[in-house]
């Protein structure tokens, strides 16, 4: 019943946001992310970086104190940080509901993880044929952020209220867990930004315009390509290669 309510909520939200914005899919492209997903993604990203940059000044002031003037000084950074963090967790919670189903871990993901070295090094030009809408790396990061957000919200409330409410040892432990969670996400965001921009070209437009090229789809998410087009990704790729070669060598 609960999952039914979530389904209805997500469906309504997606439908509503289709009136807010639009997605143009040109010939040779596939719809990747609808408006609702994109709005959530950039809301999460905005609050993530606001919270990250206000947090930097608190984490290592001797290195990052130059961040705090952007937010009106140390005091205001400290005041704003929990609100930014709450915004991040709120929008990510909506995104987690939106993406819960495609993010479920499958046997194909375990196989993907075992081949991660070949995929990351570029030895495997295309992702394994059973790679669906999200690959195992994306799922790993998603579930890390889900776990990290739970840590953030619990320890964050403790740090927000302070030692007078929760006791000094609770605060001392929470602060370490809060830091560790932030460090993991910081490491993750580098990989995330890299792969979505210069690491795998053609990815960024999925979150901007919402559409990706057919070639991108059959290369990085073959099973998803097969699911939406009904065509075999390897055949489609080979066909494209033949066309390309015949075009170049008349």
């Amino acid at each position, binding site marked *: 019943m609960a999952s039914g309510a979530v389904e209805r909520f997500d469906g309504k939200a997606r439908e509503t946001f289709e009136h807010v914005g639009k997605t143009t899919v040109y010939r040779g492209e596939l719809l990747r992310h609808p408006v609702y997903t994109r709005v959530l993604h950039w809301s999460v990203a905005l609050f993530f970086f606001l919270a990250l940059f206000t947090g930097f000044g*608190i984490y290592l002031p001797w290195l990052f104190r130059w961040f705090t003037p952007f937010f009106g000084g140390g005091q205001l950074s*400290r005041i704003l940080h929990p609100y930014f963090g709450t915004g991040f967790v709120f929008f990510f919670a909506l995104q987690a509901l939106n993406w819960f189903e495609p993010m479920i871990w499958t046997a194909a993901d375990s196989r993907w993880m075992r081949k991660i070295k070949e995929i990351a090094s570029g030895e495997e030009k295309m992702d394994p044929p059973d790679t669906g809408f999200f690959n195992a790396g994306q799922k790993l990061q998603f579930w890390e952020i889900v776990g990290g957000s739970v840590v953030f919200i619990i320890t964050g409330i403790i740090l927000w209220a302070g030692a007078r409410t929760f006791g000094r*040892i609770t605060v*001392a432990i929470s602060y*370490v867990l809060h830091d560790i969670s932030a460090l993991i996400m910081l490491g993750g965001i580098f990989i995330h930004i890299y792969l979505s921009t210069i690491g795998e070209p053609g990815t960024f437009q999925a979150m901007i315009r919402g559409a990706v*090229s057919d070639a991108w789809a059959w290369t990085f998410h073959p099973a998803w390509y097969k699911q939406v087009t009904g065509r075999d990704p390897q055949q489609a790729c080979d066909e*494209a290669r033949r066309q*390309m070669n015949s075009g170049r060598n008349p």
Partner: protein
Amino acid sequence: MADRKALQAEMISGQTPPSPGHGMQRDLEVCKLVDTTTCIGCKACEVACAEWNDLPFSLTTFDNTYQTMPETRWNFWNLIKFNEHQNPDGTIQWLMRKDQCMHCADPGCLAACPADGAIVKYANGIVDFNQENCIGCEFCVSGCPFNIPRFNPATKRVYKCTLCSDRVGEGLEPACIKACPTGCLKFGTKDDMKFIAEERAKQLRNNFGWQNAGVYDPQSVGGTHVIYVLHDATDPERYGNLPSNPQIPWSYTVWKWLFKPVLGTFALFGLLGVLLHHVTHGPRLPQPEPPKKEEANG
């Protein structure tokens, strides 16, 4: 200190150098001695503290004791804690302890503080808060084993006893010391105060029957610059939660000074890592890639 040293006589006419007293130095470290056995609970120190530091007074709460308020506040740094302790033989001890910042040699508040220059420990041992640099995160509250720093929600900053650093800097004793009518409060160098405290404890043990009398100067925080003479040093908790073994949480020592910078650097290596990946392995392009140059020609 330098000015006083400059006024020392180095050579004196008609005398063979070195002149008497030349090269002598006073101990830099100051200390406040609180003799709980001679405190009468008059609260003159509370008034003197609020007066000198110009602390705005606020309404108190009555909790069925003689205490001015249940605990110190951001605008009340010096509180006599009244505790009734029942001895095993049924007799009652009425204990009075002056509660304030202990000015630890290893201050937990300073270790916990992430703000640049908000907490300073001076060479004379005084631990002082600079409110203009305080960001109001309240980590110091969690770092302090004595539950001293107090947050003012109106200014979003934390306050506590300064050991009257402004007076001490001018060669005066703290305001509370000046007001004490019984001599239960003393102020001087750490060595002198420790000596007087030990003498007093010995007197209590030998002449007054307090077998467990002793000095409270907890070494787990490197000693403090406010020390107590207690009737029973084996049980400081009876004086209103004075910890017998004050500790600074591990997360404010090892984590902060070692793991924070090290792990932060590791996170930045993540950035370096992805850039190196791009340089060494290049991007993964959607397939089919355009034919390589040789193939196209061949």
